[in-house]
């Protein structure tokens, strides 16, 4: 059993060599092309990523009718915006938004794996994939949020969304105080993936 708790001292270099070996063998054997992995990685640099979610949230902040449509029919509302194509593509075929407000805070989680709305948020960060977050977030979300630096007032309802079927959830965070002078693009720049999953608030911009 004690071996189980040891790591290979060359853990990362072996991992790196193994994945390179695997990719080389798969290219040699015609399973993938030498440009296949780059095609995937390019997609997450240019098409799918949190830059889309940030634009959607900023629009919801400046246009309350759009926000209402986004909550009622998330894919249709997103389709109104000029964000990248593919917003109903892989891992975003069925997305739904929920909104934080004065009396409610939302937290998105996937206790079985790491379901995440790829088109609007890109790939999940390590905190989201961590088994400790996934284990604790559904029972003690306030304690978990406190560890993320987000204290939740006693009167606020916490809603936890466990993604285990087709829906991929994301959160419309609250617009921060002191942001009324910002343009929509400047607002989008404030929005983080963490805020759109519920483990962060959107910080106010520096004072004028």
């Amino acid at each position, binding site marked *: 059993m004690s071996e189980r708790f040891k790591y290979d001292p060359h853990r990362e270099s072996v991992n790196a060599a*193994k994945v*390179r070996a695997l990719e080389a063998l798969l290219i040699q054997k015609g399973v993938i092309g030498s*440009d296949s992995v780059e095609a995937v990685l390019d997609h997450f640099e240019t098409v799918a990523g949190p830059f889309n979610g940030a634009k959607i949230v900023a629009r919801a902040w400046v246009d309350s009718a759009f926000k209402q449509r986004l909550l009622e029919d998330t894919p249709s509302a997103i389709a109104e915006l000029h964000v990248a194509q593919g917003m109903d593509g892989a891992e975003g075929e069925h997305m739904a938004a929920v909104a934080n407000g004065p009396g409610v805070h939302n937290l998105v989680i996937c206790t079985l794996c790491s379901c995440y709305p790829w088109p609007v948020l890109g790939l999940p960060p*390590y*905190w989201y994939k961590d*088994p400790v977050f996934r284990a604790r977030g*559904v*029972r003690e979300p306030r304690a978990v949020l406190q560890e993320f630096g987000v204290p939740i007032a006693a009167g606020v*309802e916490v809603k936890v969304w466990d993604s285990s079927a087709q829906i991929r959830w994301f959160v419309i965070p609250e617009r921060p105080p002191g942001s009324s002078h910002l343009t929509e693009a400047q607002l989008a720049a404030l929005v983080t993936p963490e805020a759109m999953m519920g483990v962060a608030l959107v910080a106010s911009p520096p004072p004028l």
Partner: protein
Amino acid sequence: MKLQHALGGLENLGPVNTDVRVFVEEWEKRIFGIHTVMMAESTHLNGALPAYPVDSLPTTFKTTWTWASLRTGAEAMQPFDYFKYRYYEKWLMGIGQFFVDQGYITAQELSEKTGHFLASPGEALPVGPNPALRAQVVDYLLRGDSGLRARLAAPIFQVGQAVTVADPPAADHTRLPGYLRNKRGRIDAVYPGAFEYFVSTGPDGLEGPMPVYRVVFDAPEIWGASMSEPRTTIYADLFEVYLQPPDLSDGTLS
């Protein structure tokens, strides 16, 4: 019972990891990419809603690889190992083993080639672009693989109805979070249409298209009042086979 099927609610794990990075080592990008290419050329896409040309793709990959494949592997891990290894380390173990098990490569080849790249980490990968596969990868990412299908039957449950979560036999793979088994909730929404999961989960119950519901639970119903935080509501999307009418004898069926 597998720990990975019942992570929700596990206690005494210590603080959460707040690392916001998606990848912590450069190599992790490559295994993520390999996995996604496999999904884009998987034979199961024959039945996808977008008409993908998987049969005619110039690839030697002629096997099904979906999220269910990756998840089933992670759920089969020794539970201490599941916590020990980082997310993409688990992917690398699972995907490497898959290609060996399926006969695409041998364990010896993988081991020798790994040794080779350990000794020569800067050596370039073989060159052999595959434009048709590249196009399929891009198309798959843009158009996805929705599980939405026509309903075979009307949904059994309606919005507002009380339900009890089923407790099906343990299986290799499930989409039922373990902490919800036998708990009482209420139907919050009935999603349009029906959804088909990638595979049958056998005695666990996923098989063919079925309605999916958003079910709402009060935290004390799941954890007990003493172990719950105040004003906490849990929503879970559950396939119909995972739900049952509540016990009729207590008279609370709405």
